[in-house]
Each structure stands twice: as C-alpha cells, then as structure tokens.
C-alpha cells in the first residue's frame, strides 16, 4: 500500500562563488544527502539554521537559483525526476509551502492567490468554496479574502501561504517552516491538515524548527547539520533527557529547547567553503576521537536508526563519559583550558599529542 513516492539519493548542491579578484570558489551546501518519502508518510526534517533544508526543498521543486549546481539522483514514483519533469508536476502533484512570505504577491488579493489559476468557471466556483472552507478552519474571516498581503498580520500571512498548498490535490507536500510565529490554535490546525493529507495517502516532507510540531505528526525525523544528514531518529527518542538520541548535535538540539534545559552550546556550524575533511561536528564535539578529524563518518544503521558518527554505538549505550565526569581526559587540563574553547587546529594538535603520549606509555 505504501509506495515509495520520492527517493533522493546522494545529492549534493553547491554554489559557484566569486570572491575578491574574481577568484572562484565552490560552496558545498548539501553533501551526499539521501532521503525517501512514501505515500501517506510524514518525514520531518530538523536541523541547524543554514544546514540546507530550504535548498533541499527547492531542489525537489526544481527552483534552485541559476548559480547552484545539483548532482545525484532523484526519482518520483520510481521514475527519474529530472528538471523537465519537476517543472511539469510542481504546483500540481508536488506542492511547496515556502518559508519566505516574499512568495506572496503583494499586488494580489489573498483569496485569488490561494485559488490560483482556474480551468473554467465551475472549477473556480469549487475552488472558491474550498478556499473559504480552509480559511474558516483557520479563523480567517470573510474580510480577509479581499485583503492584500500587507494588511495581514504575520500569522495570517503564514496561514495564507499554507492554504495555497492545501487547495491543490498534491501527492507530495513539501512544507518549509509552515508554523513559525503561529499561535497554538493555528499550529494545531496546520498539523491537522498535514495529518489529514497523510491519511489520504499524500506524502509530506515537513521542514521545521518546531520540534514539538514535528514530534506530534511525523513518522520519522531526519536531523541536518552543515549540509549532512547526521541522524535519522524515531519520534520516541525525543523524550526524557534525550538519552535515546545518539548524535551529540541532536542531543544539543533537544537540550536547547526552552521546554527542556535551554542549554547553551558554544561554537557555530562550519563555514561552507571550509568544511572539515572529517566529521562536520568535530569542532563542537565534546568527545571526539582521532579518526573524527580527518575521515568523514558515513550514515550507518544502528538498530532501527541511522547515525553519522564514529562513536554512535558507544553514545547509544551511554558508554562515553560525558563532560563533567571526564574532566581528567580532554577537559579543563591546566595547560590548555577547556577543550571546547580550542579552535580546530588546536584540537587536532592536542589529540595527536595525547595519543602519542599514550603510545609512549606516559
């Protein structure tokens, strides 16, 4: 019954960038990304800001900017999804809920935007009815139909954007941040719409920073960092102290929520032009090994999940002494201060030094 709707295999996206003196550099913003969605399934994508979530959405729709290059393979219903086919089925079989409210036409009344192009009078009538129905559920009164985007509050604009995708009958919905700035009622209504669609066998890719929203509707959760999928987790794993989450970034994300610990993690995602040869999280990881700095871990299956980390098995069994307990080893040694404060090359030096002293039996 559940058929594979969209398969994204090993795609990479990069930008040609001209810097001073017309030097060209290649910015890789998505690397080796594999993800699939079946009909009736809701896959949530969480992750770092700037990790490539919106660009993934745009690549599926075939609306990447012209200076972007895409490699890898995508199939839709088993057949190659090339640019031509993307253009043919977007807005129809594949619908996008865009993140930016810039997608609303400032000069067009919102009801007309939601309805879009109609085939004939009858089509228009039925779409008008459906549009009113959706707006009604969303608490958007009759007056809103005739408003222009600048007359809407932030949350109203967001609801109008979502409505645009709901009115078509897509097989696949790519929802890029459908809920920021919405109140609880509207969030719940949006999620109900997505749930209903999934029940009607539509596949949904839900890109969001709202972890609670993702958890309440998704079947599985993919976590992005610096253009890589670093973990595919189960919904149940996001509970308690996050002890069932495996990758250190996923744990940090969970513990940073205002409703858990609001915990501060220092450092930033690596620059796109300067991705380290090894693990993208190396610079921020509390417990790296020597291997991590130079070799990229691959996304590996661990029971029913997937993780991109060399120490995934240890982390899974909570076998790694975390920060406070392990103060003797990597942390807070007198000469160098806290390990996290070191930059990339200092960390490397330190690890190498430590390992060589181990070998020498110091």
């Amino acid at each position: 019954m559940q058929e594979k709707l969209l398969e994204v295999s090993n795609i990479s996206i990069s930008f040609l960038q001209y810097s001073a003196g017309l030097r060209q550099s290649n910015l890789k913003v998505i690397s080796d990304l594999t993800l699939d969605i079946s009909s009736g399934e809701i896959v949530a994508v969480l992750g770092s800001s700037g990790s490539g979530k919106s660009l993934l959405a745009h690549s599926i729709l075939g609306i990447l900017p012209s200076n972007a290059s895409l490699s890898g393979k995508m199939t839709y219903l088993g057949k190659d999804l090339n640019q031509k086919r993307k253009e043919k089925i977007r807005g129809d079989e594949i619908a996008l809920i865009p993140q930016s409210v810039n997608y609303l036409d400032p000069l067009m009344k919102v009801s007309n935007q939601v309805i879009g192009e109609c085939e004939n009078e009858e089509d228009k009538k039925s779409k008008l009815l459906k549009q009113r129905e959706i707006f009604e559920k969303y608490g958007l009164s009759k007056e809103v139909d005739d408003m222009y985007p600048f007359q809407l509050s932030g949350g109203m604009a967001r609801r109008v954007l979502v409505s645009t995708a709901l009115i078509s009958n897509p097989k696949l919905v790519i929802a890029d941040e459908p809920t920021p700035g919405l109140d609880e009622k509207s969030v719940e209504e949006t999620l109900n719409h997505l749930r209903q669609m999934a029940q009607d066998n539509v596949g949904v890719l839900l890109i969001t920073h709202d972890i609670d929203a993702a958890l309440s509707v998704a079947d599985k959760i993919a976590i992005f960092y610096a253009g890589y999928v670093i973990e595919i987790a189960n919904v149940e794993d996001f509970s308690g102290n996050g002890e069932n989450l495996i990758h250190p970034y996923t744990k940090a994300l969970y513990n940073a929520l205002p409703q858990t610990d609001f915990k501060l993690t220092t450092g930033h995602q690596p620059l796109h032009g300067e991705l380290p040869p090894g693990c993208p999280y190396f610079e921020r990881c509390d417990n790296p090994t020597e291997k991590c700095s130079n070799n990229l871990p691959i996304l590996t299956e661990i029971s029913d999940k997937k993780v991109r980390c060399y120490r995934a098995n240890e982390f899974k069994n909570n076998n790694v002494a975390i920060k406070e307990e392990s103060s003797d080893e990597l942390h807070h040694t007198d000469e160098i201060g806290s390990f996290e404060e070191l930059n990339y090359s200092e960390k490397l030096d330190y690890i190498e030094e430590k390992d060589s002293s181990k070998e020498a039996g110091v």
Partner: protein
Amino acid sequence: MKLQGENISFKYPSSKEYIIKDLNISLKSNEIKGIVGDSGCGKSTLCKILSGYNKSEGKITIDGIENNAKNKFNPIQLIFQHPELTMNPKWKMKDILFESWDVDSELIEEFGIQKSWLNRWPNELSGGELQRFSVLRALSPKTKFLICDEITTMLDAVTQVQIWDLVTKIAKDRNIGLLVVSHDKALVERICDDVIYFDEINQSNLKEL
C-alpha cells in the same frame, strides 16, 4: 530610563474598527518584558507604534519627553517579525547592516555571521541567517529600547539559545529595555522578568466601545 505608551488608540485607514484602544504600556531600562497573544490581535501593530513606524493617537514618551525619531537615530529599535520583508533586495548585506551602525567584527562573529555573507544579496541567505542580521542591525550603541517581534522563529533551538544569550547579555550590559513578543510561552518564560497578555491591556478597553 522609562519608555511609556499612554492611551494609545489605533486603526488602519482601511479598517472600520479600532485594533488598539486606550492601551497603556511601559518598559524600563534593563527590564525584559514579554507579550503574548493570539495571532492577529495587534502585537506587531503595537510594536510599530512604539517604535514610531505607525502614527497613533496617544503619546509615546521616554522619560516624559515625546519620542520624535525624525532626523536622528531612533533609540527605540524594532526587530521586525519577517526579516525578508525589511531588507532591500537591491542592497548587499553589508550595505543593509552598516547602514544602521558601524557593527564591530567581533559581534558579527558572535552572531554566527560569516564574513562572506556580507557580499551576498538578501535572497542568497537562509531564513535564520537573515533573522540574525536583522537582530544585529538593531543593536547599535545608541539603542535604548529594543522591541523584538518574534525574532528567533526561524532559528534552530541551539542557535536560538545563543542569540537570546547574546541579546540579553548586551541588554544588561548597556541597560537596554527589551520588549519580547512571541508565541512560544516556554521561551518567553525563560527570558522575561514579566509576561503580559495582550488582551489584558487592550481587550477590556475594546469591549467597552
């Protein structure tokens, strides 16, 4: 210092009814006050009134003196809900950022903004990256009150903590008063000294009409 909005009433030219009626609000230096309320109730409208973008009935004063932002840097800075709507698509990010104030590079780094982004156009950045620019550009040394209208909605939780950590530290250091509008109640409770419900300062007056 004390920012005060007194007897604020407002309706948009196209609307029949008042959205805000006889509303009173105050914000002191060093204070962090949260506002929550349903979508469409008038929070962003109030933010724009306080920071001088919308003209309303009533008075906006700082220490009793009416705030007239014309011809000088406005000490009441607003960070808009949708950063993508407030950045000129024909300007590069460096022009957008430095138009506001001479941002020091240390702060740029702390906000997780990469130097190379400064040479890009607004549509070449992610939602959360734009949002970070939008926060940073409001943090001029001359800013006395900062009005934050849903300013971290497009950030992942890890970056969200970092940005709030920075903003609240800077506010404390410089005695800035913060007004925080958000639908995320857990977030507001984490960062604010005090939370008010928009309806409680507005609705009762509306109903009397």
